């Protein structure tokens, strides 16, 4: 899966499972900022999605890796088996 495909898949997940409006969600949009407003419950969902779709565990991973779709994708890329 290319990096762009991975990011698109993550974006679709944010839209379908976390109710985020796709129009305002770019790959570099801050996820935990005021506009999208993700919180700790959402991070549990992200961890679960990344684990089951990309086989990468993000449990206990530092906050900065969850900042945006770009940073999540970068973490997955760096930790893929």
């Amino acid at each position: 899966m290319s990096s762009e495909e991975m990011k698109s898949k993550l974006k679709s997940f944010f839209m379908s499972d976390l109710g985020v409006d796709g129009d305002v969600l770019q790959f570099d949009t801050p996820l935990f900022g005021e506009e999208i407003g993700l919180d700790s419950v959402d991070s549990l969902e992200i961890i679960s999605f990344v684990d089951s779709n990309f086989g990468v565990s993000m449990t206990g991973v530092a906050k900065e890796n969850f900042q945006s779709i770009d940073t999540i994708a970068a973490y997955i890329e760096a930790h893929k088996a």
Partner: protein
Amino acid sequence: MTPDERRCVVTGLGVICAVGNNVEETWKSALESVSGIHKTTSVDTVNCYADLAAEVKCDTLDNLDAPEEKDRVSKLCIKAANEALADAGLSNFGDDQRVSVVIGSCVGGVLSIEQYHQHGRDASEIAKMPIAAIASQVAESCGAGGIVTNVANACAAGTISIAVACDLIRAGKADVVIAGGADSFAAVPYSGFLSLHALDENGCSPFNRCNGITLGEGAGIVIVESYEHAQKRSAKQYCEVLGSGVTSDANHITAPREDGVCLMEAINRAVKNSGIDKSDIGYVNAHGTGTGKNDNAEITAFKNFFGEDNASVSVSSTKVMTGHCLGAAGAIEAVFSIKALTTDTVLPTFPYSEEQSAALKEKVGSLDFVQNKARHKELKCVLSNNVAFGGTNAAIVFSKVPGEVSAQSAKAKKIAVTGLGIVSPLGNSKAAYLEAVKADKKPESASVHSTIALDDYKELGIKMAFYRKLDNLGQLQTVSGMRALQDANLQVTDDNAKDIGIIVGTSEGGLGATYDFEELIAREGNSQGSAFKFPHTVYNAAGGYLSICSGIKGYGVTITTGPLSGLDSIGYSMNVIHDGQEQAMMATGTDENLPIITEFAQKLGVAATDVVAPFADNEGCVVGDGSVSIMLEEEGYAKARGAKVYCYALGFGHGRKNVKFGKLVGSDEALDKAIADALADAGISASEIDAVCGFANGCKRIDDIEKGALKRVFGEKLASMPLFEVKERTGEGRAGSAALAAAEAALLLSGELAGDNAYFVAADGSVASKKADAANLKKILVISFAAGGSYSAVVFGK
């Protein structure tokens, strides 16, 4: 001292939980520090990181009438209720209108949802699913004929039920209330708490390791009786129930506020309403779930509340024995609290090593956290508190002395209707509803539903960061609630946030969301639950979201009794204002029509195949939905801020004749009682009523009950009395329709609706419809019903 007519006493106790199947066994276990937490045997734990639970082991649960018609939760509840009634020396009440049932629950008949989904979609499971079945089946089992309702505030529901019981008695609405809570352990809550990483794999360790909760199950029942009634029959009295406090965090849907300020406010209200000093409290049965967030917030609240006035109050959590029994927790803990009080015993949390005790001491300072072993302590008053998803906080005081309870301090005050928020299949505002009435709109199909649009959020200034979290029910409730505040021109500020409360009435609440969650985990496994979706399964999530969105921090309760919940929310709100607890209350009725809800209606044979009008003598009705929020304010409060007044809420009444839950036929005369009760409460006679906003929906079985009762109550006058039937436009929207009927009355009385189509029932029972003018209407009766044989009535007047 509390005057005798306001005193509430406990005359019976019943309990079933993991450490005992009755009070005696449970209390013995508590004194011996026995934990009921073991490896679960009832849910699939494959790939799940935690596999412990505190399950009830009882092989006599089916020893009751028609066990096949009851979910495990009702069986647990009836068992505890039977024990409590026997303890109180009470038995079959023969539909006595002075005997009520108020039961709290979080997940209700969730096992029946699982059964339906996984084993053939059998229609017989449907009536067992909603929380509303529990109190109704308890009432049926003992013939209670008064107000029968369920409190659905998740983990605080048990405590709130006992508080509501006292409110009813002090308002003169009941003499005896069977109050408590019940929940059963099941895959949905297990998977949900797993998904939140909120289960402790080693078993909960409140105020100690604080790694998470362990789920339990069970039921607790307290017979709350008016002192005078108990005296008259020379009943044994355990103790007094004094004041209570209920508040909302307005912060987060699952997590409590870290600063604990709203929990502290609930405790403060409970103590203040009791008319006692902080130092009178000798023991606190804490919520103490075992999560860091809860336990730390509670410690903060206790330290700040008790301060130096009662710096060494004893505190413990008994969840290490029973597990977290969700909606039953507060009720089981009430039984523990009452036993503690009456035997001068403080119960422990365990196990603590010496090292852990030292660490706890560091954290809690001079507070006396009771560890490892129960011990003797002279007690005068005991406090029990619980907190819940949705941001609910509840606290209640049990006492050996009558205290100085403040109740009904604003009974003489008039209550004004000052704002309406209407979400229905016709549109999402009052303006859209008025427009639809003008255009005489009817449902477009036999199943209709409301649709919230982005424009609604934009108009109300609700940001995506908030609305993205909402499920369908939460969307309907948030929009209608915010519209009501907007219509009332009431700004929620730091100054008034605690003066305003919310009561949400709902028939099915989070049933649809629970089904959705069940579908997910049946497909993916219990380890794959969704942390995002799980909060929506609790019925009070919608009210919680409204509190977060609006900032309302006062009283916050969700009641679920069937369609009439949309009127009971008004009646109970009137009581909260008359009690002097709040200045303003938002009373709502909210139900949704997801595809699964229409499927249930079809399977039960109550869904019409085509559009039908009220009084069409059909087998079924149009399935609809909606959320209507009505702002009620103490008149002086409303006038001081220059609020527009639609009309006044003059009276509320209730009637019940027990029939099986899921049925209505045979209970007709209870509607007459509800109407008579509401008229008496309003201090008027039937001849003063000018019109009725009814509940007819086209289904003959239901419509005939309305026609029959109105004929008996109004006699010949009925032929010329307009009956306004909102379901002709929105379909059967259960609690949403009941509240819409009340909103219709307010719109007619205020003149905002100049008239509407009305039905007239002739002496021979035939029905004709024509447009009726609103100009001469001064007082309108609003009525609704609930399966099991309950009816409610509200009187609105100019």
